[in-house]
């Protein structure tokens, strides 16, 4: 073994070696620190360890001795400097051969090189086959790649990744982005990512490089500095392209006006790349337990909802003798009205075994949904969703829920994860593996507090997801405050800089005090990793991902002001038909019965993707009473005058 000897194992009665730990002293110039990988080697035996504790001492028996020796003068210099020894405790990572397992013998200690790092972390068994580079272990001036086993990161052996760290250092987001880039580069099967952007603009510019080249983009100091040679070398060592994500698709619900998107990625240059996320009646009816209050959905209400779901939606029924096909909330409201009318006219308290009060209650709750979740739930038949069944390999699907209220976030998470699971179960998602990325787990899956559907959803992924190919990459500031089963099911855990209060919680008792100290002072780009193949946590460095940070993206692409209806319609439709003029839109808007009608027509047009979008839009708009389309050369039709005897002015039209 051509390694550099840096010390020697010492075993004393007070501090003996064991099969799992050993102590060694190191030379003054040895580049050894907490987290350093070392090898204690003697003929026929190699013991790989990671330094978990360090202590230095001299022969000074007491501080008082030094004080007396210096005559109380801290500046006094002694003629002789006491010898100072630096000793370290290393936790055993691997012993070769593994049997018999004996206390570590007294032997020379060497710094680990690339090969030794691979052996120490048992990466030699998988790195060529299923290795995903996650960072570089720094050993003096050497940088050795550290790999995660994709079979333990993305299944089927184990799965899930959890990241903990204080906020503000961009470690959590950056490390997730880097791991995803590395997975895209090295994972041999198809995989897609669904990212839930839960705050600000964190993940809204994944398709832009972070580091503007000379002459490109704003050269403001607030922007990230470009990568230096060392960082580029890190990318080269990890065999990951220093590029942003090549394929990213963004999804965001509408705002309450159902025209402007509820996201920060609304700059005119970018808003076209954001797909509206709007769900109709059919889409959310099976998730009513998520959006309705638990007290509302009792057994009777649930029975009626199930009846509506199975017998009413997308079917033609004849309540009160009138034929109706329920396709959206507006239809459903009308259906309820007819049912209630029938009951009132026939003076019956039950309709198809459902009590009048139950029907009233469900009517009330369901009819409110499109109002409560305005922008997300569409009152009409317009629906826009993730491309179920057509997920693309190496594509990131960002769902921006940052501006949604908690219950709406619940609905988005639950529905998307349910859909992912259903499609993965049947093998019809389009990819075999999907990674779900969720930040702020402290908020969405707390260890205490009320049980929510979102928490249940996250638990479901973490406990059963890996069998389906669904993997959770989660992040939070305080791991101790996240549901134990979620972090417990994460086979791979990454730790950035930690808060000392957090480190004082019981979950970190397995770490030595030196390791905790190091965790509390980790710099940007440094991480501690736990992975099933690593017997002990390992410290690595990773390069900054070449992905534009959210704040930089907002500076470069400031969000647009909310557009007025006419302008928004024109902008959206002009993407389909560039000959469309503002005046044409203005005319149609003026003729429409109400603004919602315009929105509905616009969305239908966008969804239909017709050859003649302008014509489709015009035809889709229900006209105001008394207004008809007038062809060229025709005289406008006379509007009949109002008769004072009639109660309804629109009755005769």
């Amino acid at each position, binding site marked *: 073994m051509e390694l550099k000897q840096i010390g020697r194992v010492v075993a004393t009665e007070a501090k003996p070696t064991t099969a799992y730990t050993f102590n060694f002293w190191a030379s003054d110039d040895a580049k050894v620190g907490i987290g350093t990988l070392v090898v204690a080697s003697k003929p026929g035996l190699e013991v790989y360890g990671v330094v978990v504790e360090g202590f230095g001492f001299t*022969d000074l028996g007491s501080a008082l001795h030094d004080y007396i020796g*210096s005559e109380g003068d801290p500046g*006094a210099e002694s*003629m*002789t400097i006491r010898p100072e020894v630096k000793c370290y405790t290393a936790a055993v990572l691997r012993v070769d051969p593994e049997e018999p397992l004996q206390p570590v013998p007294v032997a020379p200690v060497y710094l680990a090189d690339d090969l030794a790092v691979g052996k120490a972390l048992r990466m030699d068994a998988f790195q060529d086959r299923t290795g995903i580079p996650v960072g570089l272990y720094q050993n003096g001036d050497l940088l050795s790649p550290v790999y995660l086993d994709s079979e333990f990161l993305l299944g089927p052996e184990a799965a899930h990744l959890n990241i903990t760290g204080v906020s503000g250092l961009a470690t959590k987001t950056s490390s997730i982005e880097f791991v995803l880039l590395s997975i895209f580069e090295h994972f041999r099967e198809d995989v897609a990512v669904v990212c839930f952007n839960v705050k600000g603009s964190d993940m809204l510019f994944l398709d832009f490089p972070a580091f503007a080249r000379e002459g490109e983009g704003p050269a403001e100091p607030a922007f990230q500095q470009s990568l230096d040679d060392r960082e580029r070398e890190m990318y080269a060592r990890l065999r990951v392209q220093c590029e942003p994500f090549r394929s990213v698709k963004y999804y965001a619900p509408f705002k309450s006006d159902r025209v402007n998107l509820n996201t920060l990625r609304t700059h005119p240059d970018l808003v076209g790349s954001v797909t509206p996320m709007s769900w109709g009646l059919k889409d959310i009816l099976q998730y009513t337990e998520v959006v309705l209050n638990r007290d509302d959905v009792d057994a009777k209400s649930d029975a009626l909802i199930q009846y509506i779901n199975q017998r009413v939606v997308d079917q033609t029924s004849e309540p009160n003798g009138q034929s109706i096909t329920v396709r959206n909330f507006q239809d459903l409201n009308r259906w309820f009205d007819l049912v209630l009318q029938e009951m009132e006219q026939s003076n019956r308290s039950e309709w198809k075994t459902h009590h009048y009060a139950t029907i009233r209650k469900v009517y009330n709750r369901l009819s409110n949904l499109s109002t409560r979740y305005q922008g997300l739930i569409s009152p009409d038949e317009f629906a826009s969703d993730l491309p179920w069944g057509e997920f693309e390999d190496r594509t990131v699907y960002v769902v921006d829920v940052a501006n949604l209220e908690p219950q709406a976030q619940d609905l988005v998470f639950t529905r998307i994860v349910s859909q992912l699971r259903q499609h993965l179960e049947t093998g019809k998602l389009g990819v075999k593996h999907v990674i779900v990325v969720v930040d702020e787990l402290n908020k969405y899956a707390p260890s205490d507090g009320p049980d929510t559907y979102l928490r249940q959803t996250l638990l479901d992924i973490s406990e059963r997801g890996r069998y389906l190919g669904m993997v959770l990459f989660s992040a939070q500031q305080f791991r101790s405050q996240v549901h134990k089963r979620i972090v417990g099911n994460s086979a791979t855990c990454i730790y950035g800089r930690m808060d000392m209060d957090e480190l004082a919680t019981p979950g970190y008792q397995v770490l030595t005090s030196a390791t905790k100290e190091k965790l509390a002072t980790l710099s940007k780009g440094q991480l501690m990793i736990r992975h099933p193949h690593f017997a002990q946590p390992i410290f690595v460095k990773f390069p900054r991902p070449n992905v534009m940070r959210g704040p930089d993206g907002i500076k470069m692409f400031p969000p647009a002001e909310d557009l007025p209806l006419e302008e928004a319609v024109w902008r959206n439709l002009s993407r389909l038909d560039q000959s469309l003029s503002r005046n044409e839109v203005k005319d149609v808007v003026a003729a429409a019965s109400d603004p919602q009608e315009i929105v509905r027509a616009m969305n239908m047009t966008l969804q239909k993707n017709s050859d003649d979008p302008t014509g489709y839009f015009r035809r889709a708009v229900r006209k105001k009473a008394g207004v008809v389309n007038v062809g060229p050369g025709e005289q406008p039709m006379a509007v009949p005058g109002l008769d004072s005897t009639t109660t309804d002015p629109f009755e005769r039209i």
Partner: protein
Amino acid sequence: MSELLRNLAACIRERADPRVHVVTGLELAEDEPTALAAATPHVAGAEVVEPSGKIDPVPVGDPEPGRFGCFMDGMERQRVVLYFSAVPVVYGYTAAVIRTRGPDRRMRTHAPPAVREALFYSRRLVDLQLDGIDSIDTDDEEKPVEEHPMILLDAARKKVSGARERLERGVTSEWLAASDEGKDWLLVDGSLTGDYDQYAEPNMVGVVKSHQTQYFPMEEQRKILGLPVGQRSGVFIPRGRRRPEVYSWYLRLRSNEGQDVHFGLVRIEAAKCERTLARADEISRWLLAERSPLSLPDARWDRMIYPIRDCEQYLRSLAPSRTMLDAALLRLTR
């Protein structure tokens, strides 16, 4: 395990002599404490050579960094390892080393230590064929030691100390032969025992920490014992020793207020030459500067300078331990 112990174990096992009684579990007697305990306080004479002709206190001035760059100390460890027909056979380990202090003020080893491991016993009384094992006869050529285990043991101990002194003289002579006069000075722990007459003005001083020998009548001795810190006695030549003559003087390194009269008192020995007389104050100031760092937790910290403790620590780290001896001998007792 040392070569000697391995060979000894092999020899004894091979011979299986019923007269051999192996001893294990004893502590190793070590260094000065043993030697001092054995020494009897006595009175000797002295000739004052101080220009004033008096032994009276002389202020030496403020401490100043000196030219002590090398430090020599020796060590010995001894223990009865077996009895041959009730005659003790002592295992003795002796070593001496010179450690140097570099410009960075850190101590390093000047050269590998001189080490001698041997068995000390009366060859007249012990009929052991110990091939390949270094041994030293404890009988005097002129007068055989009496056949009393304790007396025989005492004789062996003296021989071990003698072996240590020889090693010390050896490394000192080597250093003197190799050193350039006028540069570094060598500070030796204890008396200057060698014959260095070939060197006109050897850069070497000895620092004696024990005061078993009193060189002056009590009236004069009171002046020495009453020396305040930073003052020395007049220079004198100690008499009644079987060693080459040296110049010597007492120096109080630390105040003995509230302490024993000998606390912080050392006796310095240097070559018998004019330069020593001229530089007694200067050498004393160098020594005063060596008071820091303290040699605690050593019991003699008030008189021991730190580099000498460093030499001791170094030698101890290489010396065999009781466990090591027992490990070598345990199998022989079964």
